[in-house]
């Protein structure tokens, strides 16, 4: 699990918003699938840990790994694509023709690897700047970006934008809604439905926070006839970053419910006990702990031992005694 939010996510996010302007909308809400809590047992607790950690990396700027063989796109491709649209749409606001207030403009652009993106911009104030209340939508048609072919739609709503994004003090709240947004390669595909609300605050040099809230987001992967669906409900990741020496240190909490088709499908609820602390030079957090809770009081405790290893412990009967444990590499899990 990489909680490498800090400069990578935030600065990239800021740079694109900096091209926009000043700051409001509502995210779509997916129907919430009913799922009963999963009994966490000795046979499934490692898989649960893996799912919980993976669910966190969906939303993070993890490095991934190089491609030699062609790989099915990961969920991050959809997230990265969506975030990139914020940058691109911000530029479109600046060049959109001045129209009567409330009028929308549509423009089609060719993607870097072929295909197209059709973007509709609603500049509420008609001032060619991104303000609160502005929105945009994108329809991808065989658009080749990020090493995958993207189809489907997404929309962006700017709920609040203020401050100077070229400086250190700013804030922004943006809602990204994925509507059957799909990425595919020759090895498989992934599709996403749901909304992500991103709230970003910069309060000083290398100091600020990124708050990601998901009411419901479902990611479905399909590879060679095998499907996997993971739904995040009331999922929230809050990452605070601050200067540390020459770099940045990040403290991250994760809370929410995940439902995985591979886990029956049933749900587990994740709650951070101690924030995960990660230095700028590490790929994984060196400290921190969360507990994933299932049916009948069963629990799984995940504790960062170092930036390399993580301890996974099981309390299957809910008596607060962790009767089984394993030490694993972070890289094995997320």
């Amino acid at each position, binding site marked *: 699990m990489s909680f490498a939010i800090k400069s990578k996510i935030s600065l990239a996010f800021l740079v694109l918003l900096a091209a926009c302007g000043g700051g409001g909308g509502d995210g779509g809400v997916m129907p919430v699938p009913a799922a009963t809590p999963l009994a966490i047992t000795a046979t499934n607790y490692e898989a649960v840990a893996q799912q919980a950690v993976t669910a966190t990396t969906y939303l993070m700027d993890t*490095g991934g790994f190089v*491609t030699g063989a062609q790989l099915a796109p990961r969920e991050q491709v959809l997230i*990265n694509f969506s975030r990139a649209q914020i940058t691109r749409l911000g530029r479109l606001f600046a060049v959109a023709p001045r129209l009567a207030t409330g009028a929308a403009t549509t423009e089609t652009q060719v993607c870097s690897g072929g295909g197209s993106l059709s973007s509709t911009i609603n500049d509420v104030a008609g001032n060619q700047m991104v303000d609160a209340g502005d929105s945009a939508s994108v329809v991808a048609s065989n658009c080749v970006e990020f090493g995958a072919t993207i189809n489907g739609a997404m929309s962006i709503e700017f709920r609040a934008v203020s401050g100077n994004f070229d400086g250190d003090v700013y804030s922004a709240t943006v809602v990204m809604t994925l509507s059957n947004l799909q990425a595919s390669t020759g090895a498989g595909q992934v599709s996403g439905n749901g909304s992500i609300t991103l709230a970003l605050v910069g309060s000083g040099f290398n100091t600020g926070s990124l708050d990601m809230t998901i009411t419901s987001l479902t990611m479905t992967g399909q*590879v060679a006839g095998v499907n996997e669906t993971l739904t995040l409900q009331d999922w929230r990741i809050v990452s605070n970053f601050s200067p540390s020496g020459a770099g940045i240190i990040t403290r991250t909490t994760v809370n929410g419910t995940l439902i995985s088709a591979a886990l029956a499908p049933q749900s587990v609820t994740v709650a951070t006990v101690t924030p995960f602390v990660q230095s700028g030079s590490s790929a994984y957090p060196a400290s921190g702990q969360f507990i994933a809770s299932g049916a009948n009081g069963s629990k799984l405790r995940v504790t960062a031992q170092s930036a390399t290893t993580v301890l996974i412990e099981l309390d299957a009967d809910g008596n607060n005694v962790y009767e089984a444990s394993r030490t694993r590499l972070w890289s094995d899990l997320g």
Partner: protein
Amino acid sequence: MPGRAAVHVAGRTVAGGALALLCGTAMPAHAACAPPGVVLAAGAEHSRWRELDAKGRPLLHEQGTLATLSLALDLACAGIDWRLAVEQAAGRRAYDGRSTTGTALATHSRIARTTLELTAWVPLTDTWAAGVRLGARQLERDIAGVGAVSGYAERFRDGQLAAGLRQISGLGPGLRGTAELWLGAGPAGRLALQLPQSDATVLRLGSSRLLQAALALHGGGHDANSTVWGLQLNYRRERFGAGPAQPLMRQGLLVGGAAQPQTQQSALALQATLGW
């Protein structure tokens, strides 16, 4: 260690079986054989590797220089010239591709390739010969990580059967030139993968096609005890079809999918040879 590497090369049972079959059918039991010869070759090759998606769009490309070393055993029996050769190539190629999150990146891959080939030449005329070659190959490709992007290793194994034509021309006293042209094909090979975050898996590759042309200049060999020197220039181009997608699992959970896309390889090699 060409000899040792040959033990591990893919398809050795195929090559060994073919040798037995070819020897059994083509060599009379009491065939008169000339004393065997040994040829040692060393050189370098410029290697290119491209991967393309289903629509022919480039996914990644690599190029670099590999050092090559080969050892061949020649045997002429009953009018057929046999050669059993093992070659090792190793080096580094610059990699220009993407990470799993879609980010373009440049890094490098370390290549180690072992090839075992059995060739039979049948003279057609004084200067022309027709040949058949059975080859088995193992290619290890270790793609280096860069920054927070992890690398990983791959191991390809495949085999090919090729048919060739050779012309030998006398260029002067003790000097002769050789030109060879090969066309070949191979069945689907295998790619063993150990990707980060998933269990080890083996992917099927697509079938392969080969085009190869070689020019060589040889001198010496005035008598049975003298050495033969040579220089050879070899161009080889191969295409591999895309393999089927396969799920990547970890602890029973689907964590991704992988397929080897359509792949094109080419190599231009220059080698110096010395034979006894």
